């Protein structure tokens, strides 16, 4: 909870620092045209203080006050140029990290595609071998049938041959 209060207070301090007209003038930044919400920012510091006092959380109050002192000083001592430099460094790190991770992901995906291609090729090869086997079986059957037909023709007899349900040859 103390951490939340500290974050809340530091957000308020950051807002006060960023929108401070004297600082903006000193750092050659444009004067803000919109309204400056000073009191909500101040309340972000006052409310946690009062809450910690009224709940008699003395250790929490001490930590909060110490943390706000140190972090508030750091915020106030950091110039907008330094902040923008930090932002750019962070942005560059994030961009580089994103680019590297996306490259890594695409590599993985490419590898996946290659693998799936290989797998489908393998599957098609297996299918082909199955088909060949089937063809060989069928060719064998056809050869048997042709042999039987030729025997019938030699004997000069008319016969009716039933070679399974799908193949029916009637010879006159």
């Amino acid at each position, binding site marked *: 909870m103390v951490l939340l209060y500290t974050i809340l207070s530091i957000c308020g301090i950051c807002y006060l620092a960023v929108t401070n007209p004297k600082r903006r003038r000193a750092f050659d930044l444009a004067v803000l045209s919109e309204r400056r919400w000073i009191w909500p920012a101040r309340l972000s510091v006052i409310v946690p203080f009062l809450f910690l006092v009224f709940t008699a959380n003395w250790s929490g109050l001490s930590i909060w006050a*110490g943390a706000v002192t140190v972090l508030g000083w750091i915020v*106030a001592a950091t*110039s907008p140029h330094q902040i923008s430099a930090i932002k750019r*460094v962070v942005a560059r790190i994030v961009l580089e990290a994103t680019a590297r991770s996306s490259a890594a992901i695409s590599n993985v995906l490419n590898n996946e595609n290659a693998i799936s291609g290989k797998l489908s090729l393998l599957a098609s090869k297996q299918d082909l071998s199955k088909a060949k086997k089937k063809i060989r079986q069928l060719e064998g059957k056809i050869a048997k049938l042709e042999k039987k037909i030729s025997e019938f023709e030699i004997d000069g007899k008319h016969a009716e041959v039933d070679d399974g349900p799908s193949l029916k040859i009637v010879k006159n």
Partner: protein
Amino acid sequence: MISLSQSKTKRLVAIHGWSGTVLGLLLYVVIFTGAVAVFEREISVWSQGGTQYSEGIGRKIDRLFRQHAKEIDRKYYEEIFIARNRSGDFRFSFQTHEKNPATDTLEDKAVILTIDEETEQVVSRWEGFLSERAPDRGDTLSRFFVDIHVQLHLPNPYGLILVGILGLMMMAAAISGILIHRHLIKEMFLPVRPRKSMVSARDLHNLAGTWGIPFAILLAFTGVFFSFATTLGVPIMAMVAFGGDQQALIESVQGTAKVLDKTPASLASLDYIIKDAINRTEGAYVTFIGIQHYDTMAATVRVNMATIDGQLSGNVFGYEGVSREFTGEKPLLGQVPSLGSSLIGIIAPLHFGSFAGIASKTVWLGLGLAMAFVSATGMLLWTKRREDQAIWREFHKWIYVVIWGLPVAMMVSAYAFFLTLPAGDPGWWVPASFVIASLVIIGACLMKPFQEDAFRRLTGIMAVGLPLLRHLTGGTSWSESILTQGQGVIIAIDVVLLALGLILLCWKQIKQSSRTMSAQPEPAE
């Protein structure tokens, strides 16, 4: 806004500047080592290794205590203290008061047993006058840092008095700072103007001072209390109110000693007392047990509890030793709870920042470093303004030597500790190496012009090398510290040192890239 006449402001500026500059280098040393000493316990665990870092006395201490107490001479039953040492072992200290032939004064004489919790065997036994007892070898490094902070490693009471005076000077600087900064609240967001040496230095000092003033006063006041309470406070109060009789003062504050019934009687179960104390504090653990007049009808037990969430200091409970009757909460000062006693009770946690574990210690480290920054920038500003005078120009250089030389000398003492711990005597080598390093730095800076960059690189190299040396000299490994001891302190300090070292070594590149980034125009939205 505080309105002051020009002459008053001038006088206050003089007080502010002189109080921060005269002995300012020593004040900087005290503040910086104080910031590091906040982590005294953690440094101790990190440096000695092999520790369990367990806190609190469990409920099953009674049998173990009685088993070892019966082997101790009864004359040591006057006062007994039970606690854990830094290694997590139990420490039973049996004490009496005897005249020390060496000093011809009444002193505490003790038998101290260190007992392994697992095996219940005595790890070490020490007997003698407490004033002659050397600190544990493993604690040498952390104790040394504390010693510099507390008394600049000078003999008692001169060190304490000197540090107390430095604290008073810090308070004077802080209070005069409040008065001379007319727009204290407005200056909280004072822009630090770049590239204007003097103005920029003043802005930096004013800004850090403005934010840090409340804690500067708090830390200085509590520090002064510790320095002067025993060295000056008690004798002066005794002189003023009791005609110099310190015993009468102590009896007036703590109560007159009653006639003791020394009839032999068995002490009630400590396990019961511990259980009762834990129930009274919603689960806080027991940190310390004090038994007076053990095995007699006059026996009393004092139980110190750990700080519970939201509070700054732990409770202290009293029990009758034989009947185990709860006699109430014991104030630190006097016989009954009072505002004065409560205020005395919070001085230690507010100065040490030890009331909420690592969280409060980290914040206090930040505050300490912020105070050191204010002190250093103040001295630099004061001397910069007077650089037309040779003496101030020279002093300006020595401020940089102390700012950079102090961490180097502290690290040299840490190196000496690790190198001498396995075979030598770190108790001698740690302070000796600090002094040698300081003399070498001073000598080098006398012969050659001061080079900040060289010091930065040296500090960086030493910071990176320290965890490696710790590991090479048999320190606890990272896996061991996590898997078998369940503590991240060792890894955390190693990582902080490595990160600090790398930052210092890459400082130029970081600064360069920051400048390049600042110079680049903002990208279009």
